[in-house]
């Protein structure tokens, strides 16, 4: 029982088997790559007589399905043997179970890959069931062998456990969250092997069915084999280019996604972190104004800055479409890389998420014990060394959590790359959702994998973080660096920048709604006040001749106001649901700090937060369609609630952790019922953070597009309505809607802040745990 380590001999045998498998895989794979490559080149040359070029992915793909099939099979078989060896001799049941699971899965997939007739879901399910059964048997044997704890599940114990409200709530919420979080993810996984009528997989499957008989007609692995195994030949001039499907639909967008995420992280931390340092640790001027305006870009809808970027720099010559402000005013034509693609997307994302970095890093700077730095100063440490060796390590945790948050958010962002025309996983998903629906689901699965990865990293870092307490909260006054004249220069520079990112969008949106035609800035360039119009606002009847395509002005347009109503309804319901559940989770988890189940529920609630929005949206889209609630408020609220519970649960957990357990125990002893304890003691004490737990989902819902756009028709929500007007070319309408949205969010944020003291930034701050 005590010996958990594997016998060395078994280790060696296992290692050798694994090594052999890998060697065979590599050897056969390399052989086939060259073989296939030459075949392709020869065939192409014979057929057309033209020059043929094969890109790397093309070659890879050409050989992939066949070679990888055999190799996977071999490796899988060997691993199965190794797994069973370990299993039979096993003394660590967990490892054995996982080993068996993976190997059986691997083996059956290996068979499926090389035998086309077996391309059916039935085989995959068989593999899965087999593996699961094996794992269950392993664990059951282990459990039976282990010394049994007396009366582990005795009725009295269960009753005692459930008589505590926090346990009962945790149990119920755990089950509900598991179903609502895991189920959509499973449906999207299943969707990748489903036949989609009208999609390429159904055509391919029909062709396949003609050749083989053992095909069930509803499921296929074509989406996987095609995406990873097939090539597409395109003609570029006289040359024919063989490219893999994956390179077009997967690798390039994936690369772009990762690149913009990384750049956004760098940018956000550099900008937000520097700003945090300047505001908290130097004698910068205008701090108060700067710190409140700096978070504007985060409060505003994501696409605001992207749209503004377009409106500023686009030109008919370079990008097509309307001329932007720069061209109109100064006749400056910005190059294409400046207007579209990775560069602007990264910049806009970085600007949008810089407030994250500011709030998280600034929070630590603010509460950091000044003695730590002073101790270094006393020891005559140079200032730079103090900063790099003392200060930076202390803010490292904040930097890490910023990276994780920004990375996952940037990865799932749809509107920014959409407006600035970059193919990322999220835009590619939308592009593929009609005729490569199954493969789009594969993209969503890949995005989710990133989410899981980030969750894992997050967990490692947060558990290690507890090791040193940076924040004592007892710092008297932190020493401030004297910037001398720089305090004015930097202050003014920052004012200009923040004006551009925070106030300028509002002004520009406002101006847009008064232009007679999009991009017609003649009233500025020529100084003619008459070249403006109010028709976009106040037209009250159906007119076609004024270029409004029969739409009424914003103020009279019932569709717009209906969509606004819809958004408000969804936001309120989401806020209520997410806020309530999140608060309960925070409460229950803080009561059961040591329990594994509580940790599980907490992580389950946190998971969607680190999932890219688009992947969550996609999962709920497929989930909702399959149970017939697509385009209903119910689905929107469900998705919104699941995605935003973390906002509430984090801030609730944080505040509940600070509340001594004795406070509630004092009431328990006096036989105060649970609901009375909650409403009379716990909630009144922590009302600020609980309110911000309701407020954050509300605010975020108002401006959410990525999550919701797949889940409903365009007229349902104000954010999806924007897309409709953009497609119609009615940019004044979308500007008007943006303007109203921004003003609404800013006003309600200020209002709640003034009334309750809760604010959006305190909520983000609590993300850091």
């Amino acid at each position, binding site marked *: 029982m005590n010996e958990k380590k594997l016998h060395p001999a078994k280790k060696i045998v296992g290692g050798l088997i694994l090594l052999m498998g890998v060697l065979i895989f590599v050897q056969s794979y390399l052989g086939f790559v060259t073989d296939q490559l030459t075949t392709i080149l020869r065939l192409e040359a014979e057929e057309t007589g033209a020059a043929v070029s094969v890109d790397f992915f093309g070659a890879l793909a050409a050989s992939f399905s066949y070679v990888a099939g055999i190799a996977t099979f071999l490796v899988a078989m060997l691993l199965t043997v190794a797994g069973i060896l370990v299993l039979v001799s096993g003394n660590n049941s967990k490892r054995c179970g996982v080993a068996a699971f993976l190997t059986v899965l691997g083996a059956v997939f290996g068979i499926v890959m090389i035998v086309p007739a077996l391309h059916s879901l039935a085989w995959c399910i068989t593999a899965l069931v087999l593996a699961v059964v094996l794992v269950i048997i392993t664990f059951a044997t282990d459990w039976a062998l282990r010394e049994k704890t*007396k*009366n582990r599940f*005795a*009725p*009295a*114990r269960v*009753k*005692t456990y459930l*008589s505590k409200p926090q346990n009962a709530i945790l149990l119920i919420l755990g089950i509900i969250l598991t179903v609502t979080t895991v189920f959509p993810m499973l449906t999207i996984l299943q969707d990748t092997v489903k036949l989609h009528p009208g999609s390429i997989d159904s055509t391919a499957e029909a062709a396949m069915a003609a050749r083989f008989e053992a095909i069930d007609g509803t499921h296929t692995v074509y989406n996987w084999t095609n995406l990873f195994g097939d090539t597409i030949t395109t003609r570029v001039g006289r040359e024919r280019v063989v490219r893999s499907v994956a390179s077009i639909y997967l690798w390039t967008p994936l690369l772009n996604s990762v690149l913009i995420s990384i750049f956004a992280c760098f940018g956000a931390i550099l900008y937000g972190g520097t700003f945090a340092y300047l505001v908290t640790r130097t004698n910068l001027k205008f701090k108060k104004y700067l710190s409140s305006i700096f978070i504007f870009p985060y409060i505003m809808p994501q696409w605001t800055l992207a749209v503004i970027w377009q409106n500023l720099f686009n030109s008919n010559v370079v990008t097509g479409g309307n001329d932007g402000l720069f061209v109109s005013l100064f006749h400056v034509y910005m190059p294409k890389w400046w207007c579209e693609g990775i560069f602007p997307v990264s910049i806009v994302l970085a600007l949008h998420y810089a407030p994250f970095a500011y709030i998280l890093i600034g929070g630590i700077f603010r509460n950091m014990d000044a003695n730590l730095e002073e101790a270094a100063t006393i020891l005559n440490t140079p200032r730079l060394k103090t900063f790099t060796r003392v200060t930076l390590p202390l803010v490292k945790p904040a930097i890490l959590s910023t990276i994780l948050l920004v990375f996952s958010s940037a990865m799932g962002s749809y509107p920014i790359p959409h407006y600035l025309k970059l193919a990322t996983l999220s835009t590619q998903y939308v592009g593929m959702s009609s005729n490569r629906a199954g493969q789009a689901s594969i993209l969503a699965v890949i995005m989710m994998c990133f989410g899981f990865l980030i969750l894992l990293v997050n967990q490692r870092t947060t558990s290690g973080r507890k090791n040193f307490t940076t924040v004592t909260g007892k710092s008297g006054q932190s020493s401030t660096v004297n910037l001398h004249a720089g305090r004015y220069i930097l202050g003014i520079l920052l004012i200009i920048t923040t004006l551009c990112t925070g106030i300028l969008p509002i002004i520009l949106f406002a101006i847009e709604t008064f232009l007679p035609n999009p991009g017609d800035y003649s009233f500025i360039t020529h100084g003619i006040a008459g070249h403006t119009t109010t028709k976009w606002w106040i037209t009250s009847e159906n007119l076609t001749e004024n270029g409004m395509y029969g739409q009424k002005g914003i103020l009279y347009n019932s569709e717009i106001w209906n969509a606004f109503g819809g958004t408000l309804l969804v936001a309120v319901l989401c806020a209520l649901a997410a806020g309530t559940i999140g608060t309960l989770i925070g409460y229950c988890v803080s009561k059961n700090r*040591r329990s594994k189940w509580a940790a599980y529920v907490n992580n389950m609630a946190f998971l969607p937060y680190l999932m890219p929005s688009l992947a969550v949206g996609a999962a709920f889209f497929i989930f909702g369609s399959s149970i017939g609630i697509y385009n209903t408020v119910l689905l929107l609220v469900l998705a919104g609630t699941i995605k935003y519970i973390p906002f509430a649960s984090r801030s609730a957990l944080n505040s509940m952790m600070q509340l*001594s357990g*004795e*406070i509630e*125990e*004092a*009431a*328990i*002893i*006096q*036989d*105060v*019922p649970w609901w*009375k304890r909650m409403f*009379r*003691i716990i909630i*009144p*004490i922590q009302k600020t953070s609980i309110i911000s737990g309701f407020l954050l989902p509300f605010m975020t819902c108002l401006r959410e597009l990525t999550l919701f756009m797949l889940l409903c028709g365009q007229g349902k929500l104000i954010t999806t309505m924007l897309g409709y007007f953009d497609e119609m070319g009615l940019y004044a309408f979308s500007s008007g809607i943006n303007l109203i949205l921004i003003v609404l969010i800013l006003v309600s944020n200020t209002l709640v802040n003034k009334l309750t003291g809760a604010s959006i930034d305190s909520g983000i701050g609590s993300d850091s745990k």
Partner: protein
Amino acid sequence: MARIELTHVTKRWGGFYAVDDLDLLIDDNAFVTLLGPSGCGKTTTLRMIAGLETPTTGKITIDGMTVFDSDAGINVPANKRRVGFLFQNYALWPNMTVFQNIAFGLGNIKEPGLSVTPEGEIVRDPKAGGAARKLTKEEIKRIVARVSAIVKIEPFMDRYPGELSGGQQQRVAIARTLAPGPKVLFMDEPLSNLDAKLRLEMRSELQRLHLSTGSTFVYVTHDQMEAMTLATRICLISNGVLQQYDEPLTVYNRPNNTFVADFVGNPAINFMNARGRQQEDGSFRLRILGEYDAVFTPSERILVDSWYADAEKKIAAFEAKVRPEVKTNKDVPFNYPVAMVQDIPDDKTLDREDWALGVRPEFVSICEDGPVEGEVFSAMPTGMETTVRIRVGNFLLTSVVFGGVTYKIGEKIRLRFSGNGAVLFSRVNGRLVSTGTVEIRR
């Protein structure tokens, strides 16, 4: 009235035993302190009796009612045990005024035969019959008035806890605990957050409170002085295991083992390593402090061999009970401190001729003709008494001299061991052999 009985109560987390097989009988109207170093399981014990923590196994009865029994599957929740609990950090609800804090729990009482005397005392008489009823507002006011008068907080009834000083908060917490008239009162280090002077004052008030309420008090503390002065009985716990459960002076004078001897008493007892054997007449000839021959005369007749046999039986019985093989927190014998000028590690293997002699500082008397020669190492006069540390060879002995005597550091003095308060422990198992007198032979 309220008698508390714990039988074989164990609380463990995995292999960590916070409380290991504890048997404890707390008499009605007793004032029992659970004493021990931090992390020894005393708070866990208290919380288990109160119902805030669930024991792993065992049985607890309060006032004849079984509130927990792992075998019978009984677990009465904390709110139904009708006990009072005074928390270390007071746990006053910051969102309520003093009055609301005290009255809040009273609003939940609902039982038959409830009445309140004009003085504000709750009278529970289930036999009086009638339907279960709640207390009226008027009654609650009367009760609050009574308990707030006991702890003298009437002027602050409309303040919030944040506007009170630590001592006042403490009083409010006591009033809140007293209000529903609990039959048992639990206190978890209630005085540890107060300053020294206030602590002394509250200590005496708690004693008066115990007298006037007539309830059973169970009191957790790590301060041996508090335990000595307040308790009718001390329950000393270490590493989850009960060490001694006796009246304070018994614990002081007849400590069961070296741990108890060292833990109780301030300044701490002087330990000396001794080697020697029992003589025909029952006394022990011992070599102590390096060069001195001493005779230890036990106050009762004992025979070393039968004593060892007896002790081994007890140890075996104990180990059979606690199953040390599954326990991650191991019970290692307490390593008592021998004060030395320069620490010399002592790692010799022990046999039955190794003893530990303990002499309390008040029995180390300084006198002109004392047989032991020493030199003043440090002297700390407080006015009422002076604590002197005396260097004898490489060893240090602590002595307490009453009255304001001044000593010069380095001064040569002579001393003797007086009185019959010396205690002899076996070094093999750390257990008490006997109390007695020590005489130095030149």
